[in-house]
């Protein structure tokens, strides 16, 4: 039983990381219907920025964290301006390819700038553990869970309660109509990319004590976060987190209870099964074309 709870908590923590990355996918998708395959690499870049500020320049953890988030928000805007804006409105496939290309580029550049070693960021809560009875919970994992809950709530409120959030949902529905209604669609898209890069950075920094930062971490985790977003139904913020947690729990349970090798495959098998039964994910909207 204790093993089970222990696995469950570590699965939830891992799942929250996937969920955070998946949130970035979902944000961009919600507002622009662009699937950003470079999301994991944005996370990796955010981690490296934070490492540069905290580990190399010796700034305070929180200042370095904020700096990395701000820098990455700007970078997200830049990426949107250079790569995505010229091809908005073209078939989804070309945009996917463009973001795959962007991912390649970021990964290689990060490898050239920071090298291919593993890096670690010292955090104020990387050492301690919380003991409840005989259950041992590491603070770094708890911090990920807490951050996910906070970010998810904030983003949900932002999307559903603020004017800007409504504008984003509108431009997702129909860019042209939103533009006619006086919504500055270009600026909205650019802000969405900034937010999604910032969320990715949060994931990267929180992840740093758990899995370390290296130039391929974005690819590895991005490929797990992507099923998470699909499982929850692309375009649903709570769905992304639920999907992430499910994938994380399945992975850690499969790693603990099943034979070696199942750990990496189990999430994908579950994903295929879910897609068979509910092709639009758990929380996705099913829309039929009107002719």
């Amino acid at each position, binding site marked *: 039983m204790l093993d089970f709870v222990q696995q469950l908590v570590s699965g939830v923590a891992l799942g929250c990381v996937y969920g955070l990355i998946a949130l970035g996918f979902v944000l961009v998708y919600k507002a622009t219907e662009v699937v950003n395959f470079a999301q994991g690499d944005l996370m990796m870049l955010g981690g490296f920025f934070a490492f540069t500020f905290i580990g190399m320049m010796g700034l305070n953890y929180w200042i370095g964290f904020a700096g990395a988030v701000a820098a990455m928000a700007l970078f997200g805007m830049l990426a949107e301006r250079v790569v995505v804006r010229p091809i908005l409105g073209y078939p989804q496939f070309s945009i996917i*390819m463009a973001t795959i290309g962007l991912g390649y580029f970021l*990964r290689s550049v990060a490898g050239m700038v920071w090298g291919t070693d593993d890096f670690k960021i010292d955090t104020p809560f990387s050492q301690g553990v919380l003991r409840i009875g005989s259950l041992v919970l590491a603070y770094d994992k708890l911090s990920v869970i807490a951050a996910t809950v906070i970010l998810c709530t904030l983003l949900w409120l932002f999307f559903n309660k603020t004017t800007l959030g409504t504008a984003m949902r509108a431009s997702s529905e129909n860019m042209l109509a939103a533009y006619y209604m006086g919504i500055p669609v270009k600026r909205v898209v650019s802000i969405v990319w900034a937010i999604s890069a910032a969320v990715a950075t949060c994931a990267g920094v929180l992840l740093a004590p758990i899995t370390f930062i290296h130039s391929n971490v974005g690819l590895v985790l991005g490929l797990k976060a992507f099923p998470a977003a699909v499982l929850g139904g692309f375009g649903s913020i709570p769905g992304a987190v639920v999907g992430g947690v499910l994938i994380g729990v399945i992975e850690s349970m499969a790693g603990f209870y099943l034979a070696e090798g199942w750990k990496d495959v189990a999430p*994908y098998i579950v*994903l295929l099964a879910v897609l068979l039964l509910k092709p639009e994910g758990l929380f996705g909207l099913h829309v039929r074309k009107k002719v």
Partner: protein
Amino acid sequence: MRFLFKTDYEDDIRLFPHSGYVVSYGILLALLLIAPYVLSSYLMSQLVFVCIYATVGVALLILTGFTGQASLGHAAFLAIGAYTAAYLQKYNVPFPVYFLAAGILTGCIGALVGFPALRLQGIYLVIATISFAFIIEEILARWESVTNGNEGMRIKAVSLLGVTVSRDSPTFYFLCLAVLVLTIVGTLNLLRSPTGRAFVAIRDSETAARSMGINVALYKVKSFAISAAITGFAGVLFAHKLSFISPEMFTLQLSIEFIIVILIGGTFSLHGAVLGAIFIVMIDPFLTYLKDDMPGIIAGIAATFGAGMQTAANIQAKVAAFASLNGLKGAIYGIIIVLFVLFEPLGLYGRWLKIKLFFQLFPLYKRATFKRQKIYVKSERNR
């Protein structure tokens, strides 16, 4: 300029619309046939890879380009073909038999993948094919009694009609070329048949295709099966060319490479698969060539512009250091993909058509001829 006067539907779907086609493709075929006696053995080896990649490219074009079903799992189909060949070869099955068996088995698995894919669309289909590829990769690594696990499998040379065909011999090249040409001709015939027209109708609008009486599910599964089977055939040749296969060769990276083949070549015509394959296979030697020669060239340019001996040597050393940085190849790869999507969405073949049209219409060419329409209503989500 040539005007084609069509009086019949048969004229419209002819394999060779006019005699120019016969002449130009005949010359191309003749050049390809004398290639082994002219080119160096390294280039020949690259040419074999071009043939294999182009075959996969054609397969992917049937599925992605003409039926509109994106797939990032074709490395798995290639792996199934390759492993079937390697496994059957251990039991002394003759080449023609296991070649066909690999294609048929891969086709069946492709059809099985097609069934769950029926209900999926766009991004969901992409992720489903990625998942499928991951599962296959893991099976290959774990099913050790058949696949030898991570140690990989060796494959002996092809033995055809009692003759052993080494993987570097011209005969193996002719074999790959024959498979490619047969695939292309077969696909061209497929595309001008009712099946091919059904594929294109599904790509353009599933709802419209259904209301025209096309059995969408059947044709989607057919498209998956055909595409997978061709990839399986290519897999057999791939295995023989490498003579050693292991699971880590058939990763997502390879699937992305295949997508890049058709993206760079152009997704609307079979020419695209061949041009894209040439590009992907030749970019590696080209980058290596640049890496070796660029520092000297840049230093030479600097010297002619009045830089001293010392500065020129300095520049050469710096450029050489930059060129041998580890991830540079990946970065260039990424930039090429982005640039193609942004500025040449129709690919290399699209560029060729543009140049051709420019000269045909000489003073009257308009840029807007090839401009794609942007759609800001989210049509893909509620197709």
